[in-house]
């Protein structure tokens, strides 16, 4: 049975006639929710969002309503809303689609959220490489401003809010909220130490700030549309709403697919939705939530007890795609970038590739990440170049263990989880590679392989 997508955010984007200008958006009922929102009490909107149970789509999966609740409203300082559109996690491409194809949805979601938290100024921090997206957003904002949907005295409600689009200079770390704030302030995107710099209290310019992902902010619009309670009924309790899965890798039809949380299993996503693997190939591994999440091996089985007490015994195909299930199997849903690897993949090279990315993207502020991640990169690069040693696998894990949990931001974990999980699940391949190369070295064939990845 072919699965039906349930699209909220991406409802119209694939319609051929749907364009990203405001008229088209208004035709599809756009800005209705904003009109509704400005008539509501901000607290009520917050409550709706809290009720909806929507969780952050950026990676960590922290409930958005809860985040808003922590906002320090009593400080007397201005409150800011920031939309995190610095989408740079390898394997993720959902925000770009939303911005390109439906920018007004984002603007509406942001304005609703800004009203809810009473922010007078909102920022869209867009990844520097998304130049087209930037232009689209600028145009969309201009359009909205002309229709008095943005700016002073929105729709005559007395509420004023402006949105500023800020292009980043191209760094993965700008996706980290405090790093993003620093960057927005015009400094190096060095994440801040928490405590004391929680954005909800001391964010942008030391003012209370809310940072949310593009998809999360779009969800706010839909929560207002269908009501928090109705939203919370999509998916399973604790994993509400729909989720956009960006599938990439060795499948027939890679792309973005929106499903209710837990509405699809990993197997269904690969074989039914994406048309299965390439002919003659077998599934080897899946990275379910962007490159930083832990890898799952195709022949693994996961057993345990759910929260409600029912026992589960899943193969990799049986894993429901939602926040909790993926963390139960030791990974995470992250930013929703599902990377499929078939049996043609060399896991050492795959890890080398990931390490190269993280070594390149480390901000360099704190020691473990600055020194440790490039070290891991150097090791995997050396392994690929034909100089692997048997002890390298253990060394990599040891380095990763020394990084994870000891850094200022979550980048340390993001960089060490792939290493930990790759070696935990594919250590045999690392060791085999080392032995093979050792043999070559003994035979005097000092083969230095050219690698394409680095």
């Amino acid at each position: 049975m072919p699965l039906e997508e349930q699209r909220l955010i991406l409802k119209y984007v694939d319609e051929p006639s749907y364009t990203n200008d405001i008229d088209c958006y208004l035709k599809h009922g756009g800005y209705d929710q904003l009109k509704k929102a400005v008539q509501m009490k901000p607290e009520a909107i917050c409550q709706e969002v809290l009720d909806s149970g929507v969780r952050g789509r950026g990676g960590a999966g922290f409930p958005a309503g809860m985040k808003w609740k922590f906002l320090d409203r009593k400080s007397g300082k201005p409150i800011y809303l920031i939309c995190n559109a610095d989408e740079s996690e390898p394997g993720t491409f959902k925000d770009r689609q939303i911005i390109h194809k439906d920018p007004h949805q984002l603007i509406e979601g942001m304005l609703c959220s800004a009203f809810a938290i009473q922010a007078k100024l909102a920022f869209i921090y867009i990844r520097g490489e998304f130049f087209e997206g930037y232009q689209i957003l600028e145009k969309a904002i201009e359009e909205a401003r002309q229709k008095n949907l943005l700016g002073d005295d929105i729709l005559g409600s007395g509420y004023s809010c402006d949105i500023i689009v800020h292009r980043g200079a191209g760094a993965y770390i700008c996706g980290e909220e405090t790093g993003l704030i620093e960057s927005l302030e015009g400094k190096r995107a060095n994440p801040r130490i928490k405590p004391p710099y929680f954005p909800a209290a001391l964010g942008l310019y030391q003012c209370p700030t809310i940072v949310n992902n593009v998809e999360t902010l779009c969800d706010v619009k839909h929560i207002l549309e269908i009501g928090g309670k109705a939203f919370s009924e999509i998916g399973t309790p604790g994993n509400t709403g729909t989720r956009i899965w960006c599938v990439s890798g060795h499948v027939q039809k890679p792309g973005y697919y929106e499903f209710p949380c837990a509405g699809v299993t990993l197997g269904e996503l690969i074989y039914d939705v994406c048309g299965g693997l390439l002919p003659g190939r077998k599934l080897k591994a899946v990275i379910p939530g962007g490159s930083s999440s832990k890898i799952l091996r195709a022949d693994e089985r996961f057993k345990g007890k759910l929260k409600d007490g029912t026992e589960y015994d899943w193969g990799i195909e049986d894993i429901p795609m939602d926040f909790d299930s993926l963390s139960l199997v030791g990974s995470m849903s992250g930013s929703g970038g599902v990377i499929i690897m078939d049996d043609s993949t060399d896991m050492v090279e795959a890890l080398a590739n990931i390490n190269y990315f993280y070594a390149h993207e480390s901000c360099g502020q704190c020691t473990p990440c600055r020194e440790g991640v490039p070290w891991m990169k150097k090791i995997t690069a050396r392994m690929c170049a034909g100089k692997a040693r048997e002890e390298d696998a253990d060394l990599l894990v040891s380095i990763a263990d020394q990084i994870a949990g000891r850094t200022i931001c979550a980048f340390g974990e993001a960089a060490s989880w792939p290493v930990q999980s790759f070696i935990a699940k594919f250590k045999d391949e690392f060791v085999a590679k080392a032995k093979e190369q050792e043999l070559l070295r003994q035979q005097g064939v000092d083969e230095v392989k050219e690698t394409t990845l680095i």
Partner: protein
Amino acid sequence: MIQIQTEETVTISVDGKSINVPKGLNVIEAMNSVGKEKEVPHYCYHPKLSIAGNCRMCLVEIGTPMRNRETGEAILDEEGAPKIGWIPKPVIGCSTIISEGMHVRTKSPTVLESRNGVTEFLLINHPLDCPICDQAGECRLQEFSAEHGRGYSRFIEDKNVKPKRTRLGPRVTLDDERCILCSRCIRFGQEIVKDDVLGFVDRGSYSTLTCFPGKELSNNYSLNTVDICPVGALTSTDFRFKMRVWFLKRTHSVCTESSVGSNTEIWSREGKIYRITPRRNDAVNDTWMTDSGRGLYKSIESEDRLKAYTMDGLTTDIDSAIQSARALIDLGGVGVLGSAFSSVEEQFLLKNIVDHTKAQFEMVQHLGDGDGLLVSEDRTPNLRGALVNELLNTLPTKCPNLLIKGIEDGVIKTLLVFNEDLSEIGVPLELLKKSVNIIYFGSLRNNTSDQAKIVFPTLSVFEKEGTFVNQNFILQKFNKAVPGPAGLVSDIEVLNRLLLGANDQPGFTHIADLWTKIAESNELLKGISWEKITSEGLMLKQEKFGALNFPETKNLKYKPVAELQAT
């Protein structure tokens, strides 16, 4: 920056032992107050700078007593003791402020493992430069890798290469490979000197400390970055490759650049001074000092240094010099030009001489621009010492008008000059040439010493011991770091011998003996003895001087007398 506002203490538990520490400290400072064995290693944290938390060396395990969310009551474990909610990950000590009941583990396996890991990471790309690195011996990285390091390297890849020998400014040279990116120097520039010229460029392991384009680290506090650099990345161009620090003897001293009286440490070996660094004193200079103050020692090796007692330009011995000087003084008609560069002890003896000879006494003021930090407007170290010694009761003027008048009128026939060059403070030399015998006390040759009938070469502040009274009326001690030129006796001995002929005061063998006399005769210094003057200094009473209009306006710790009285 950690500041303790109150006297309150909180009880925390360190590795299972409960202790009292002042409230408001962070974990690093709290552990320091416990003792050396609980020291939390750190690189980026500096007590006088903001917290960056980027070195990750100070990771400790923290736990707080668990409380029931509804009732707020403490949750107890089976044994009835409060249950501790340990934070699952180690947290950095520098940004964690201690609170009542907090539990800290500084020696747990996790903590030790974290330190080990961070040390390893810091070392993998750190060059093996210790043999040529000037920081060796006072390098935190060296110390902590000895304590926490693995002892061997697992790193077989190539080390990162970064620029070495970068000139950051006229006095500071940077070796980027050694830099551990703690950002202390950057924060110092931003927060203390407000001269924001340093920053990191590039990302990740490429991160490099550098000056902003077109700027250089040339402010008068640039060498403090060298002091606070925990490794050998920032080096003093002047001290670079001169001497290993473990050979150097450290002597506590006081900077004579201005009335701030920054506490210093003089590093010398075998009678040669190699460098001067600040010494922490939160009431005076925190942990900073000026670059200009660090170079003052070079004057003692200057070619103009007076090294022998002379009479009419001919070298003589001290006995005949003193005899002749006394003969001149005993003739009467004495004028004394005192100095605010003299120590309290010297001024005390001078006061006795002035009283005895009924000499006309005057001092001059040396003013300059203050920089708002550690250089004050009064460029002498001990003006307040003269006030305390009752040599003066008003502030001196720029020019010794009374003395000039006395000479012109022929009342003054003998003039004792201390450390001042008369030609520079507006006394016409022609006037002196014909009518007055000058007895000069000073360490450097100048126009006045050339004119003088008798010259007593004096020792510099590095060669003698004594005390100064700084802008906040803090009595501060300086010690002898190096021996003076051969054959010179200390200034207090010369003055005492000059005085001894006058009346039958017993002499003294040590400065401590002199202090018993000072304490007897001076109301403000009552009860003070040489040993009692600690390295932090003693605050003197200053009510008497409330009416005086001191030249200082604003600097790091300056408080006008009125404000001082209030505290």
